[in-house]
């Protein structure tokens, strides 16, 4: 599944549509501690987290994960929203818990 296909699934609310939406989603990564995400984040993975600050975006681009999915009804704060637009990063959100969101995406991989 590509980032665009995940957006088009309608499963998640769209916070920002970034560039490179034809990127293939390779995996799902769930984690909220940024140091762990930084060292363990999987290239190409959709990153499901509740952390919606500017540092989340920095970690995403440093690890080359493909998009952010904010779970548990969280959202980007204002500074992070501006940064996501500027850096053209795809961010989606949902009220579901991380595991459920991640499981849905995992089921669509392939």
């Amino acid at each position: 599944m590509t980032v665009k296909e995940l957006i088009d699934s309608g499963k998640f609310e769209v916070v920002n549509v970034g560039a490179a939406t034809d990127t293939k989603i390779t995996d799902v990564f769930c984690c909220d501690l940024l140091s762990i995400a930084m060292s363990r984040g999987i290239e190409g993975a959709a990153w499901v987290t509740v952390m919606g600050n500017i540092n989340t975006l920095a970690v995403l681009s440093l690890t080359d994960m493909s998009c952010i999915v904010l779970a548990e009804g969280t959202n980007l704060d204002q500074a992070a929203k501006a940064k996501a637009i500027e850096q053209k990063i795809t961010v989606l959100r949902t009220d579901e818990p991380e595991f459920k969101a991640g499981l849905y995406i995992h089921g669509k991989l392939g």
Partner: protein
Amino acid sequence: MSDTITLKYDVSTDDFTRAGEASSDVKRKLKNMNVNPEAVRKVAIAMYEGEINMVIHANGGVITVTIDPDCITMILADKGPGIPDIAKAMQAGYSTAPDNVRDLGFGAGMGLPNMKKYSDDMKIETELGVGTTVTMKVFLAA
């Protein structure tokens, strides 16, 4: 890539909104130079953790990155409080980060262990009340 390239970054105090910019910039440049992806990843992780530490623990500082054909060297120098016990600071999970920093997803006490793990060589020079200089190297296979 025969000459040495030097990059310098001012990492400012308490500016979480910009933390990570220096590491991102270095990552982008290394990618453009076709440095092997594994080395780029190691540099990005090690430098990001060091950059965040400067912001959280040391009121910012200066990062100098030199790119040689066989080695990337990152020197992170701050004029912060210094580290009283390096062995303790190096332990996974040890952190003195305040709650507002933990709320941002940092302060897991994984920074220095990650820096050690992802660099091929790391040296910490620190003096209480004077500052800390962390030097990290990532070697590039010929």
